[in-house]
């Protein structure tokens, strides 16, 4: 996935749901689910098809100013790979 022009969007089959048992978010899809940490939730929320990955990184860098940009970049790329592998992302260019 190139970082400049692609605008990731969650597949319509995905549902982000707050889990009041754990205080975290779950990403639900057919017969499966992922439990997300706070960063992953923030990333998932930005996968609307409006943001390029670069814009997502900038936004997250402002929101999490205690985390280094490299660390944010690593987490975003890893999480987007997890989603793409499972067919949970559509890339809008």
């Amino acid at each position, binding site marked *: 996935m190139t970082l400049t022009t692609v605008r990731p969007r969650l597949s*319509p*089959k995905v*549902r982000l*749901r707050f*889990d009041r*048992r*754990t205080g975290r978010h*779950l990403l*639900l*899809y*057919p*017969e499966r*689910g992922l439990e997300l940490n706070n960063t992953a939730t923030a990333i998932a929320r930005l996968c609307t098809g409006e943001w390029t990955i670069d814009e997502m990184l900038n936004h997250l860098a402002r929101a999490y100013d205690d985390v280094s940009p490299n660390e944010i970049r690593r987490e975003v790329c890893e999480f987007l790979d997890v989603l*793409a*592998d*499972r*067919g949970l992302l559509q890339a809008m260019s």
Partner: protein
Amino acid sequence: MNNEHRPYTLIAELTYRCPLRCPYCSNPWDLAEHGNEIDTDTWLRVFHEAEELGVVQLNLTGGEPLLRDDLELLIEGAGKLDLYTNLITSGIPLTFERLSRLHTLGLDSVQVSIQSTRSSVSDRIAGAPSFNRKLDAMQWVTALGIPLTMNVVLHRENISEIEEIIALAERVSADRLELANTQYLGWALKNRAALLPTREQIERARTVAAEAKMRLRGKMEVLFITPDYYSEYPKSCMEGWGRRFIVVNPEGLALPCHLAHTISGLRFEHVTQRRLADIWHHSAGFNRFRGDDWLPDPCRTCERRAIDFGGCRCQTFHVMGDADMTDPACSLAPGHHHIESARTQAGRTTGIPVLFEYRTGRGCSSR
């Protein structure tokens, strides 16, 4: 609240009625002896209680859930609880209009099973003309933009079609393909001699499925559910007894799996008589095989006990006559020779057609 015993999925078996008669059906043998189906209000209350207990996924299954004429109300109710609702169906009887209505009411995904890619074989295994209607149903699902899982229960007679099965799943734009080797319980255990593939058949299918999984990565999820008869270790049945799943059967019995009530000596309770949370946390049946204390040798000291929890309790009971033993599918189990002899028999009878004994559900209750 700890998450060790937290149900994420409610499997709602809405009815045992079904237009098909597959010889590996997981419904009980004694369908005629079962009582009345629970009503709409009871199901809606069960969904609510399940959601409070932590459930986020709802599988509507059966029998054939489309035979419930209150399916619309149930899906609408599940939608209000924000449950991710999966309909697990044969695709019969269905119309495009009804599917569209169910989708509008909150249906999130659909799983359609086929018996073979060849219509004559599929119809014969299903015991009813059904293949072409299943194709229609799958096309309606994807036309409406609903994620589709295509499920095929694999056995000796259809496992050599693996390439055609994958091609069909691609053709109907399935989102997931479940290549589910038969689990030898219920009707499948009765029909094991006719169903169990040879090791060569399994290995070939596994290789083809692995190749498809790589090729289709990110496009279609390909799941090859390994048959425990040909594994070294048992499956992690239901991800552990009373850990992640609750099954409620058509009569309202709450269970850790579809067949738990076929194990003699266990006591399970009805959702009409006790709150689901009480049943989940406190009933004798749900607690019977939780944790490590009940584990037999060699599981007790085995490092895999946290992975497979000693395997499948129902299989152990139905093969060994004692649910407290290690699953005989495990190569370390004292009863493993039962599985080995079934495999040997499968190797010997290659090519000899064996008759299926069909489930007959005609006499079972209807609402």
